[in-house]
C-alpha cells in the first residue's frame, strides 16, 4: 500500500462522522490515548537519545529551530496580505503551521518502519524543540502594536502544557532509565503503540468530520494554503536535513515536522493568547485538510523528495 494501514482508521472515523453515525469516542478515551502517545514518543526518543552525545545536538537543534521560524514568518504575510485574513486569524494559523503535529510525526515513523527505513533517534528532540517557538511568533505577530501583551502566562501555558510535559518527561525518563530500565515497559509503550495510534486516528477522523463544515466558510484560498504550505515546508525540511547530513529517514521526519500543523498544543495556546482569532478556521485547516493531506499525500511525497534530493546539497 502507498500509505500506512493505520490511516484506514482515520478514514473509518471520517466516514462514520460523515454518515452521522452514533459512534462516539468518549472524550476521556481521547485524552487517555493522547497521554499514552505523547509519553510513548518521549520514552522512545529518550532511549535513542542515550546513544548520542547530547552536546552534538545543540548546533543542529539550533539550525532546525531557526529554519523552522521561516514557516510562520512566511505564512503570516501570505495569509494576511494575499489571503486577506484578519491579523489575528493569520497569526494564529501561522502559529499552527509553524508548530508540529505529534500524530503526523508518529504516522511518518510508522511509514518508515514499515519500509525498513531507519532514522536518527534524536528526531524526537527536534519534535520537542519545534513545538513552541512558532506559538511565540504567532502571538508576537498578533499583538504587534498592542501594549497589552502578557508573556508570562503564555510562556507558562506553553512550557507547562500537557504535550511538552509528557514529551519532555518521557524523553528524560527514557534517557535516565535507558533501554534496559525501560524494557519492562516496552510491552505497553512500544508494542501497543501502533494499535493505540490507530484508535487515536479513528477518533481524529470523527473529530475531523465535524470540522469539514467549518471549511466551507473558509474559502478556496485557505484550502490551497492548507495543501501547498505543507509541501513547501516539507521541501524546506528535506533541504535542511540534507544540509545537516541526516539520513533519508531523518529527512522524511524533519520534513513531516515542518509540514505538519499542530492541533494539540497550538489550539489551546492560541485560544487564550489570541482570543480574537476564530479557532474554527485554524483548526479546520490544520485538522480538516492538512492532517489528512499529510497522511495520504505528504508523507509519501516527502519520502520521494528525500530519496531524490539525497546528497544533492
Amino acid at each position, binding site marked *: 500500500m502507498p500509505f500506512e494501514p493505520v490511516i484506514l482508521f482515520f478514514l473509518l472515523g471520517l466516514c462514520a462522522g460523515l454518515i452521522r453515525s452514533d459512534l462516539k469516542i468518549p*472524550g476521556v478515551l*481521547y485524552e487517555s490515548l493522547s497521554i499514552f502517545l505523547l509519553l510513548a514518543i518521549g520514552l522512545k526518543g529518550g532511549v535513542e537519545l542515550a546513544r548520542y552525545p547530547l552536546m552534538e545536538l545543540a548546533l543542529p537543534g539550533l539550525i532546525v529551530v531557526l529554519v523552522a521560524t521561516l514557516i510562520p514568518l512566511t505564512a503570516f504575510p501570505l495569509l494576511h496580505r494575499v489571503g486577506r485574513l484578519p491579523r489575528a486569524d493569520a497569526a494564529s494559523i501561522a502559529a499552527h503551521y509553524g508548530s508540529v503535529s505529534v500524530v503526523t510525526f508518529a504516522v511518518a515513523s510508522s511509514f518508515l518502519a514499515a519500509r525498513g527505513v531507519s532514522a536518527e533517534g534524536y528526531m524526537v528532540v527536534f519534535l520537542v524543540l519545534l513545538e513552541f517557538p512558532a506559538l511565540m511568533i504567532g502571538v508576537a505577530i498578533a499583538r504587534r502594536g498592542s501594549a497589552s501583551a502578557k508573556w508570562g502566562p503564555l510562556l507558562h501555558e506553553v512550557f507547562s502544557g500537557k504535550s511538552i510535559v509528557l514529551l519532555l518527561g518521557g524523553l528524560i525518563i527514557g534517557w535516565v532509565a535507558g533501554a534496559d530500565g525501560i524494557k519492562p515497559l516496552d510491552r505497553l509503550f512500544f508494542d501497543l503503540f501502533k494499535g493505540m495510534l490507530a484508535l487515536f486516528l479513528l*477518533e481524529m477522523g470523527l*473529530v475531523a468530520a465535524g470540522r469539514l463544515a467549518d471549511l466551507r466558510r473558509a474559502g478556496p484560498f485557505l484550502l490551497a494554503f492548507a495543501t501547498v504550505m505543507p509541501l513547501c515546508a516539507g521541501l524546506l525540511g528535506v533541504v535542511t536535513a540534507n544540509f545537516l547530513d541526516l539520513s533519508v529517514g531523518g529527512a522524511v521526519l524533519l520534513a513531516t515536522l515542518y509540514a505538519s500543523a499542530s492541533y494539540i498544543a497550538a489550539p*489551546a495556546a492560541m*485560544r*487564550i493568547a489570541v*482570543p480574537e482569532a476564530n479557532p474554527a478556521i485554524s*483548526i479546520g485547516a490544520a485538522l480538516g485538510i492538512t492532517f489528512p493531506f499529510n497522511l495520504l499525500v505528504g508523507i509519501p511525497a516527502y519520502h520521494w523528495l528525500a530519496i531524490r534530493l539525497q546528497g544533492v546539497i
Partner: protein
Amino acid sequence: MTIQPTLRKLLTIVCEAELENSLLREFAHHGVTGYTITEARGHGAHGTRDAAWPASANIRIEVLCEERVALEIVESLQEKFYQNFGMVSFLSDVQVLRPEKF
C-alpha cells in the same frame, strides 16, 4: 421549623473549557468563596460543541454569591469574554441556609 433560608444569587456560566483558569482568576478577583464545575457540551451561536476533544468541550460553572458580586462578575465576563468566546451566563434566585458562607 428552625431554619430560615436566606436569598442569594446563583450565577451559572456555560463556556468553552479552555476558559476555566481565566474564570477562576476572575472569581478570585471578585472575592468568590467557592464554585462548582461540571463537564458539559452543547450548541449555541458558536456552533456545536460536542466535547469529543478538548477544543470542543464546554464547562458549566455555578457560583453562589451575593447579587452585587454576581452582577459584577457578569459585567466583567461580558466585557472580557463575550465577544470572542462561546459563553452564556444567567442568574437565578436561590435560598441558602448559611448566608454568611456565600
